[in-house]
């Protein structure tokens, strides 16, 4: 078994497509458990049963269209005009935009392919270093899971509620609890952005330039308003926001601004769908490999091992963080929630940890797990989208990873941050 695992690793390092490695490990696992291999197809087919995935092709296409148009240049001009006097201005705008976007779309890599496509060229155009820009867009791909109305926050509350946890753990309380920890992460990353952008040229604020920049971006500016406003007013469902975005961008860039000729559209569609295919085929097969882990009861085994080592609240929290980080790189956030919360919550309560606080710790870990080297999924997605070696992504995200680890420690050992807004 170890030998076969090693062989797969070597094949991966010599450049076998990642999806084939994942598929092989899933099939091998099922084969050894004497389970019919068509389970892999059954799991892969779940792609057609997950509503949230619809957002991926639609947002990706919109992102490609925007990045092929003059939108990145206009965005740079506008933020330079508005925030050019401030160190790290564009980087901060990017962080906030990604966080809001992820809160709505989840961390499934949509933020990287859709917004990253727009922000990465904008950042490098504005003079930020390549690795800084890469690190920012990759990290931001999961930033925002702690902000309402992110689905994992809702799901945690629903699961905890069903366990019969007293003290009414509501969705609203999770929404409130996520706010300060989320802002802490954002603030630390903002600090890093200001520091990294310190040598970039600053410009005095000019009302005239700002006016001109706003005018130039007239058609793109309503986009966030339309999307967020549409969702909050109930005109469309979250899953439909992607369709509105794609449709709006299509009309603006092709019909109104005419920056992209109609005859180039099929090529752009094709290019963006190649990316979607590359990502979703991995996602579908990792559903199968996750299913093998679940079938064999591996998360529970891992948990039992860790529990043997626990002696106090502090060690519990340390081991919890390590365990969840590892889990976050292996499982998708939803499987992790439904599998582990019922096991963790009673024990955490036993150590006097507030269930709301546990939820925030859990999600913060999962968020970092998305880009924890060597196998965090978003590292691969960013490598693919920006055509950079995975190794470069490891290096580019390292400072961001370390900063968020600090944030994680603060969130874990300072419960006040999660509970202050709750009057508990």
């Amino acid at each position: 078994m170890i030998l076969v695992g090693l062989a797969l690793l070597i094949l991966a390092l010599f450049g076998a497509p990642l999806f084939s490695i994942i598929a092989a490990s899933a099939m091998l696992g099922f084969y050894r458990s004497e389970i019919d291999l068509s389970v892999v197809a059954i799991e892969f087919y779940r792609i057609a049963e997950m509503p949230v995935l619809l957002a991926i092709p639609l947002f990706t296409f919109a992102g490609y269209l925007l990045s092929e148009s003059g939108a990145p240049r206009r965005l740079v001009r506008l933020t330079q005009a508005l925030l050019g006097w401030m160190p790290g201005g564009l980087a901060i705008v990017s962080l906030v935009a990604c966080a809001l976007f992820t809160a709505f779309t989840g961390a499934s890599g949509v933020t990287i392919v859709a917004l990253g496509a727009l922000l990465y060229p904008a950042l490098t155009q504005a003079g930020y270093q390549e690795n800084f820009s890469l690190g920012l867009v990759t990290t931001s791909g999961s930033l925002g899971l702690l902000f309402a109305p992110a689905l994992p926050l809702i799901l945690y509350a629903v699961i905890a509620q069903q366990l019969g946890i007293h003290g009414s753990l509501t969705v609203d309380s999770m929404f409130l609890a996520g706010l300060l920890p989320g802002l802490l992460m954002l603030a630390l990353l903002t600090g890093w952005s200001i520091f990294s952008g310190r040598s970039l040229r600053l410009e005095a604020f000019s009302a005239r330039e700002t006016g001109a920049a706003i005018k130039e971006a007239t058609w793109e500016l309503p986009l966030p308003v339309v999307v967020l406003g549409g969702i909050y007013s109930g005109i469309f469902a979250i899953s439909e926001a992607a369709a509105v975005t794609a449709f709006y961008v299509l009309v603006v860039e092709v019909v109104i601004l005419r920056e992209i000729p109609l005859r180039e559209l099929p090529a752009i569609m094709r290019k963006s769908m190649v990316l979607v295919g590359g990502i979703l085929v991995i996602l579908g097969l990792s559903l199968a490999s996750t299913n093998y882990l679940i079938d064999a009861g591996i998360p529970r085994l891992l948990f039992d091992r860790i529990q043997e080592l626990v002696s106090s609240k502090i060690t519990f929290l340390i081991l919890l963080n390590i365990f969840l980080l590892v889990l976050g790189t292996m499982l998708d956030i939803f499987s992790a929630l439904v599998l582990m919360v019922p096991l963790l919550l009673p024990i955490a309560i036993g150590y006097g940890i507030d269930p709301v606080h546990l939820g925030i710790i859990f999600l913060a870990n999962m968020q970092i797990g998305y880009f924890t080297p060597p196998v965090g999924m978003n590292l691969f997605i960013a490598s693919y989208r920006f055509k950079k070696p995975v190794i470069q992504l490891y290096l580019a995200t390292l400072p961001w990873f370390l900063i968020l680890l600090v944030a994680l420690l603060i969130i874990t050992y300072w419960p006040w941050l999660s509970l202050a807004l709750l009057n508990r």
Partner: protein
Amino acid sequence: MTQLKRLGTLLLQVEDLLLSLLLTSMILLATSQILLRNFWDYSLTWGDPSLRLMVLWITLLGAMAATRENNHIRIDLFSRYLPATAQRISTLITDGFAAVICALLAWHSARFVLFEREDNTQFLDLMPIWPLQIILPVGFGIIALRLLLNALLNRRGQSVS
């Protein structure tokens, strides 16, 4: 031979056309659902389930195109340090391996579709679902063939790493 080649080109064009058509209909269908609901107070029952099946089709058609361009996500730390001959052998092994895996996936997907047909699973009382799932074995089968071709012809185009 030229006719065979022409047929091949035609098939590729059909594949590209299908991809663009699917994406366009997804955008139009999803947008018109919003309009229907807000202005005519009507919802399409088949809307969302069809959109999700289209995501499945896009996934496989996109992955097929990615294989054609040799543009799959790879970790690939080592092969760039290899001399040319060793690199060729390495490609032959890794892509050959991937081709075998995809052939297995195609085979077991075909069994999956066959089971669904035997069970007479329906797509919302409208039609049998298996024709809508046929892209699974077809897609993985074509990917396997293309990988095999890549391995034999030693094409490693624009792999990202």
